[in-house]
C-alpha cells in the first residue's frame, strides 16, 4: 500500500513540475543605474567614443556626456536637468559649436524598432537642449539602436548601461 502512495506522490510531483513556469519576466525588473556622474565610458567596440571630445579648457572636465533611460522609456529623468542646462548653456554661448546626440537601446526585441527607441531618446535630449537655448542647427541626432552597446552582457546591469544618449561635441 505504501508503494502506491510513493507512486502517487511522484506522479503528483511530475504534474506540478510540468505546470510550473520558470521563465523570468524581464519587464518585472525595474530601475537603472544613475550614470549622471560618469564621464564618457567609451564602451566596448565603440571607437567613435574618440570622436569630438575636443572641449574648451574653461569647461568643467567632469561634465557628464551620457544620459541614461529606464526600460522602454524615452522620458528624461529629473536628475539630468542640471547637466542638460549646462550643455545647453555651452551651446547657446557659442553658436558655432555643434553636437551630435547618439541614441541607443538595450538589445531586447527587434533591431529596427530599437533604432526607433534610440532615436526617441536622442530627440528627447534634443528638445530639452532647444528649450534651454540651443539652436536647431547646432544639433544632429543619430540612433544606433542596439548596434553599439556599451556593455555586452544580457543582464539588467548591462541593459541599463546601454539605454542611453551620448552627447558628442563635433567641434
Amino acid at each position: 500500500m505504501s508503494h502506491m502512495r510513493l507512486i502517487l506522490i511522484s506522479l503528483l510531483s511530475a504534474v506540478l513540475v510540468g505546470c510550473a513556469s520558470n521563465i523570468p519576466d524581464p519587464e518585472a525588473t525595474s530601475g537603472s543605474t544613475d550614470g549622471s556622474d560618469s564621464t564618457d565610458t567609451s564602451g566596448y567596440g565603440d571607437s567613435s567614443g574618440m570622436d569630438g571630445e575636443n572641449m574648451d579648457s574653461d569647461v568643467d572636465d567632469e561634465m557628464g556626456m551620457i544620459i541614461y533611460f529606464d526600460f522602454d522609456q524615452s522620458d528624461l529623468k529629473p536628475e539630468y536637468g542640471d547637466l542638460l542646462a549646462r550643455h545647453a548653456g555651452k551651446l547657446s554661448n557659442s553658436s558655432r559649436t555643434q553636437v551630435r546626440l547618439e541614441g541607443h537601446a538595450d538589445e531586447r526585441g527587434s533591431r529596427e524598432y530599437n533604432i526607433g527607441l534610440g532615436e526617441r531618446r536622442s530627440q528627447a535630449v534634443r528638445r530639452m537642449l532647444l528649450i534651454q537655448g540651443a539652436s536647431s542647427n547646432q544639433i544632429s541626432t543619430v540612433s544606433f539602436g542596439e548596434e553599439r552597446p556599451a556593455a555586452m552582457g544580457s543582464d539588467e546591469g548591462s541593459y541599463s548601461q546601454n539605454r542611453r544618449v551620448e552627447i558628442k561635441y563635433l567641434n
Partner: protein
Amino acid sequence: MQETLRTWALACVLLLLASHSWAELQIEITQGAGRRAPVAVVPFGWEGGDASAPLDISGVIGADLTRSGRFAPIPPDDMLQMPTTGVEVDFDDWSILGVEAVVVGRVTQTGDNAYSVQFQLFDVFKREQLVGYRMPASRGTMRRVAHRAADMIFEKLTGIQGVFATQIAYVTAKENGRNRIFTLVVSDSDGENENTIMESTDPIMSPAWSPDSRRLAYVSFEGDRSTVFVQTLRTGNRLKVSDRRGINGAPAFSPDGRKLVLTLGGADGNLDIFIMDIATKDITRLTTNRAIDTEGTWSPDGEQIYFTSDRSGGPQVYRVGISGGTPERITFEGSYNARPRLSPDGSKLAMVHLDRGNYRIAVLDLENENFLVVSAGRQDESPSFAPNSDTLIYATRAGRNGVLETVSADGLIRQRMGSGRADVREPVWSPFPRL
C-alpha cells in the same frame, strides 16, 4: 481491494494530467519531433580521369535530407549493395533494411572541366522509379547541382518544394581589438560557400534580397549615420538609395523589384513608412503617426505593406494599402509583436513576439488566425521565410554570440546552424533562383 482500485484510478488520472501538461511544453522545446523516414543515398559511381569525382554528391544530398529533419539516411556501411543505376537495384536488399526510398547515381567526366551528373530515386515498397534526371556540371557548379538533385528528391518524397539550392544572407560581427568588424555575407543555404559582400568597422543592418536575387539592400552606419544602399552582387557596385537627414532604415523590395519600402525619421526623428521608386528616387509617404512606424514589408501581391507600429502603446503589426489610408492592426496576442515577414505564398506572417518574458518567433496563420510560437530562446529575432513558405530562418543566442536556426512553420522541426563561435545575426533567405 476497493482501496487498491481507487488508488489505481487516481494514479491513471494523475498520469493523464501529467502527460497533458508535458505535451504543451514539448512543442516548444523539441528540436526534431516527427518521424524521420529511413532512406538510402548510395555513394555515386564515378567515371573519369581522376581517382574520384570532384565532389561526394551523395554526401551533399544525404546532408540536405538530414537537415530537413524529415529523413534519416542510413550509413553506407549498412548498405547491402552499391548500385549506381536503376537496373542494378535489388529491392529486396533495401526492404530488409527498412529503407523506404533509394537514391542511386553516377558522375561521368565528359571533358576537361565538364561532367554529367545523373540520379534516380526509387520507392522501395512500390518497386518503381519516382524521378530520374541528368544534369551537366563543372567543378564550380557541382555543389549547386547536388543541391538541385536534393530538391527534386525532397519534392518527390514530401510534396514540398525543396530549398537546398538557395542562398542566405546575414551579418556577422567579429571582435578586432577594441573595435568590431561587421561583414555582410551571402552563403549557400547550408552555410557553405561564404562570400563577403561588404565589410565595415561600423554596424550593418537589415539586409534584404531583391526578387531576382541579384541585389541586396542594407543599412550601413559608415560615417556614424544611417544610409540605405542597394548593392549588385555580381559586380559589387552599390547605389546610395537614401541618406536623408536622420534615420534611414528597414529597406524591403517590392515583388516587382522596382520599389523599396523604407523607414525615414527626418530631422524630428518621427519614424514613418515610405515607398521609394528605386529608379527615380521619388518617395511616397504611407504613415504620418507620431508613433514609431518601421520594419515595413510587402505582401506578395504588392498591394499592402505590413509594418511595426507602437501607436497603440507597444509594438504591434499593422497593414496598410500602398496608396495609403488608415492602417489596420493585425496582431492582438500579447504586448509586443514586431518585425513582420510574410511567407511568399501569402498565407502566414512571422514576427518577433514577447512570450512570457522571452522574445521568440511566432507565426500567425492569416487564413485561420492560428497563432503559434515556434522558437524557444530568450532573444530570438529576424525571422525570414524560405521561398517554399515551409521553413523559417532566424537568429537566436548561444551564450554571447548570435547563431542561426531554422524551424518548420508548424514549429515541429528545429535545427541549429553553425557552432556559435561567430556572432551571426539578421539572416534573410533568398528567393528561388531564376534560371
